[in-house]
């Protein structure tokens, strides 16, 4: 059993998938809103296996895990007590930007002015954009799930190529849990996504991408490719076609950007050192 629990594929794919699936089955049976929270549940199982939930020392990776959990909680609260939509995009963008600054602050403070502003601005825009663009998908469960899957695959595998298996595993767990979410959607067509899916997925994908760039060697120009995934998830779909077909079309639409990011990173950085 110990051998299984220390196996990277088991930690980053099998366990998050099973955890999300079981949580999703329970929440769907209860007829609960915000089933999208199961993605972060899968992620947290992976985080527990590979990093533990210690908060000291508070490294960038632990900050990301903490923010993922807080984002999920915030998403659930927003689903239960919706706020006026008017200011939500601004609040989300600012939250993402502040979170990004917190993650990279130990590096930023050592940078010269030019590099400081370049890194700070780029990171804030990327994290903020992820929050706002994913939020648009909260009422479109299949689109949100497909975007989460592509973001998880793209961020996770790019991070592995970019010399951080740890960040890669965390990203991949988002993909695995998103796979469980999409699978459940086939059996529970009314399954909701909500802010419980979009806020934590956006927060985690944004911050993992930034961390892989700043703390490992993920090339910065893969991030714009990952950033268009939420847009690709908005492609027009045939109205009266089966759910499975819509799902396949969405995965086909979003996955090229993720695969592009992986191929670029592989081209620049080469295969991971095993």
């Amino acid at each position, binding site marked *: 059993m110990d051998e299984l629990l220390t196996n990277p594929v088991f930690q980053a794919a099998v366990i998050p998938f099973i955890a999300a699936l079981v949580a999703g089955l329970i929440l769907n049976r209860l007829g609960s809103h915000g089933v999208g929270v199961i993605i972060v549940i899968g992620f947290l199982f992976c985080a527990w296996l590979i990093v533990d939930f210690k908060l000291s020392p508070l490294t960038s990776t632990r900050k990301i895990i903490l923010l993922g959990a807080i984002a999920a909680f915030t998403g659930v609260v927003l689903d239960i007590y919706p706020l006026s939509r008017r200011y939500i995009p601004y609040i989300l963008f600012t939250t993402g930007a502040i979170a990004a600054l917190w993650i990279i602050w130990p590096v930023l403070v050592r940078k010269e002015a030019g590099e400081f502003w370049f890194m700070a601005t780029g990171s804030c825009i990327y994290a903020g954009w992820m929050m706002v663009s994913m939020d648009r998908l909260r009422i479109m469960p299949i689109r949100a799930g497909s975007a989460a899957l592509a973001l998880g695959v793209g961020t996770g595998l790019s991070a592995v190529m970019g010399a951080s*298996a740890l960040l890669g595993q965390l990203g991949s767990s988002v993909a695995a849990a998103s796979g469980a979410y999409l699978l459940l959607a086939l059996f529970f067509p009314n399954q909701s996504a909500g802010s419980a899916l979009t806020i934590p997925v956006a927060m985690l994908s944004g911050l993992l991408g930034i961390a892989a760039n700043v703390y490992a060697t993920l090339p910065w120009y893969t991030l714009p490719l990952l950033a268009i995934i939420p847009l690709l998830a908005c492609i027009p779909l045939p109205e009266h076609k089966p759910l499975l077909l819509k799902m396949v079309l969405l995965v086909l639409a979003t996955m090229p950007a993720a695969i592009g990011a992986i191929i670029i990173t592989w081209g620049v950085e080469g295969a991971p*050192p095993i």
Partner: protein
Amino acid sequence: MRKMILGFVLSCLPFAVFAAKENYTIDPLHTFPNFTISHLGFSTMHGRFGNTTGKLTMDTANNTGSVEVAIDATSVDTGYKKRDDHLRSPDFLNATEFPEITYKSTKVTINGDKAIVEGNLTIKGVTKPVTLDVQRIHCGSNPMKKEEYRCGFDATADIKRSNFDVTFALPAIGDDMRLMFEVEAIRD
């Protein structure tokens, strides 16, 4: 007269102590922390850090001293760039976030050409006590540069990387690490 002699001796005492305690600056060109670690149980991998700075004091009169060393974590080198990038990443040293590995002695006991150095090693922001076993202490003038006086020694310590929050890929990649320091320092 006795009081005068005693007074003279007492007034000279601080100078005598000062003379016995010498300050040294680490020579980064001849100081390299090395490490070994088991790779998946198949072989023992060797690596080193290229940039080290620090200060030593040697109090030969009292057989003690102090050590304060800062190692540039980004200078890790195993002879393979991709692996070095991985070692610098958050998986292992997280060198961008924690660019320095430091060691600061708390107690030094010199015994001839050997010494035991007790102190605190900090990796990734985690500080743990580590004892260095110092061998072959040798001090003297540099044969290539007579006016320069230097001391050198070899030191070893065994640590568990998991104690320093470096837990990635345990237990496949070994937990036990041997640290080996080749140190030279120039008298100030």
